[in-house]
């Protein structure tokens, strides 16, 4: 049970998945990502309505999160698709992102390519070459200290504090790095005196840190992914239909009636602290490749936390 395996990348990153990722830099590029992903289910993508008519801090936050998602450790290679006239200025975003990593990165510009179909062809050619490279990689033993776990929970933070603290302590004991939405900062204090707070979707140079949450659960899950979580534990008191494309969401019910009705949308049920070792054991299997319910159902979703109006 204690043998974790994952992908070690050339630049030192450790990934628990080996994804190929298409990121539309702007809403106008969604269809390219969507169409290619239909033909190549191996391709992970996000669909969103942003990247245009954004300004100020809101635009900077979007750029930061796009860049961090493209460089996510669970990703073998990323391709950005831009229209060519958007405010995110994909060419600039792309070159800046490229400076930060040795991961294979590419940019396709729809207006330069000559339209939706021509851009799709470029993405597909790139993808076929990258699939061969990615498939040549094999899992190797890693330790919990290589892994960052994001933890989020439905319901009032104080009602979840006890169980969250138990999970945090168990994972910290294994050596895992932890990130939680800011409302659960207290749970991290059990394992760390100093808990840095970062903006939504930003990372920190710490073993345990808290991130400003989004305006809804999907934005928070997206933010934890961008913050660097390899996988996300979601303690839920309701059934949910969302996950994230790049990180496995491990969803455990904290409500017995809900679990009994919707058990096949969950990965497990957490009644009290005694169930925590069972959760940690499942997490080690998920790290090593076991699919979660959200992955099986393809619940790949994305929501950007906006901090300014569209203009």
């Amino acid at each position, binding site marked *: 049970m204690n043998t974790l395996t994952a992908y070690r990348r050339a630049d030192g990153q450790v990934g628990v998945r080996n994804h190929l990722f298409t990121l539309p830099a702007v809403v106008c590029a969604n*269809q390219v990502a969507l169409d290619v992903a239909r033909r190549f289910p191996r391709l992970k993508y996000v669909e969103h309505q942003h990247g245009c008519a954004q300004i100020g801090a809101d635009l900077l936050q979007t750029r930061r999160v796009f860049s961090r998602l493209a460089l996510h450790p669970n990703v073998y290679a990323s391709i950005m698709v831009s229209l060519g006239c958007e405010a995110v200025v994909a060419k600039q975003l792309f070159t800046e992102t490229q400076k930060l990593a040795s991961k294979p990165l590419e940019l396709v510009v729809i207006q330069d390519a000559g339209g939706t179909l021509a851009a799709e062809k470029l993405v597909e050619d790139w993808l076929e070459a990258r699939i061969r490279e990615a498939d040549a990689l094999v899992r190797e033993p890693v330790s919990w200290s290589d892994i960052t776990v994001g933890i989020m929970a439905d319901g009032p933070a104080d009602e979840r504090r006890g169980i969250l603290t138990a999970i945090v302590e168990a994972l910290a004991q294994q050596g895992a790095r932890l990130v939680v939405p800011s409302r659960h900062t207290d749970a991290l204090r059990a394992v760390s005196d100093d808990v840095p707070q970062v903006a939504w979707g930003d990372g920190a140079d710490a073993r345990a840190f808290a991130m400003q949450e989004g305006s809804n659960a999907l934005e928070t899950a997206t933010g934890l992914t961008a913050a660097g979580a390899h996988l996300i534990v979601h303690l839920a008191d309701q059934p949910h239909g969302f996950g994230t494309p790049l990180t496995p969401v491990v969803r455990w019910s904290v409500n017995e009636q809900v679990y009994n009705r919707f058990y096949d949308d969950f990965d497990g049920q957490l009644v009290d602290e005694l169930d925590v070792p069972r959760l940690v054991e499942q997490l080690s299997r998920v790290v090593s490749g076991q699919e979660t319910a959200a992955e099986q159902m393809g619940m790949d979703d994305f929501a950007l936390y906006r901090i300014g109006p569209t203009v």
Partner: protein
Amino acid sequence: MDIQGYVRADGRVGVRNHVLILPVSYEVNQIADRIVRQVPEAVTFRNQHGIDQTGADLEQTLRVYEGFATHPNVYGVVILAWGHEPYDLQRIAAKAEAAGKKVELITLEQVGGMRRAIERGVLAAQRFTAERGEAKRQPVPLSRIILGTECGGSDACSGISGNPALGVVSDLLVAEGGTSILSETTELIGAEHLLAERAVSPEVAERILFIVRRIEENAMKMGVDIRGAQPAPGNIEGGITTIEEKSLGCIHKAGSAPIQEVIEYAERPSKNGLVIMDTPGHDIEQLTGMVAGGAQIVIFTTGRGTPTGCPIAPVIKVATNSFTYQRMKDNIDFNAGTVIDGEESVDDAGRRLFQLMVEVLNGAQTKAEILGHREFGIYRIGQSL
């Protein structure tokens, strides 16, 4: 002038006969996605909203949902919900039913999970697509049409070719008694005084000045002087120098008719003729707002080239220059670059575009429809956006 349209039970006229899978929150996006994979004749979109919204922001989002669920281009609607959304799902279903739609409301909570929701949704979508043939096109006057006008990825040609040609279409439609929507308030900045002069009343004129001031103030709150932040980088590359220049080109697409009223985002016009809808300059949020407000068709001029469409309304793409038309032919329906090339007058291009609009209203497919473009975005005005 008559076109061939679908007359719905509420009297509104549709130019398409869609079965719409409408996810009201992000919790059900994947269910919607699985349904249309099994029933590809149905249409859907990705939605990242609908949960943890309040106040005016929630009301605006609900206006979009209701606008889509009751839209005359829609024959039947499968309303997909999580079941814990902070609003009355039955009300949306009841409004769609009152508009004469075939309606199925499915919540994750009520059916017992994702798998059952997908099964139920597929059955409903299959039933609606099998039944929709009962609706037949019949002659209806052009005055029943609401046209959404839009320009995106503007360049130095937009204000000379594409937008004035679209202005001709708008004037012709208004002369027939139809309705044309001018929007993207951001791109009225610097031209608001000219539009205010065309208002039918001092109240409407004041409203035009007000919405422009409001969007500028919103940008100021973000610490950005929008008169400095616009035009967008792509516009500058395309030869536009200032926001005023962009705006003066932008308003050409509204032709020369008097402005009857100013409506809020996703609101239905209460008057025929030329109206202004207050939307952001963001192409997709703007398009979504106009369609939710009842536009059955959109004409979208583009200098730099844009591929985008809408799940439930045809979007005619007009290139403002021949280079972009040639380069993005898979995406663009009409070349107004002929005006720049000296091959035809603005008036001739406008009449040719009007003819294309009539063909599309009668059922001809646009490039965006053929390629399955389904962009969607709601303009958020809440504290948390």
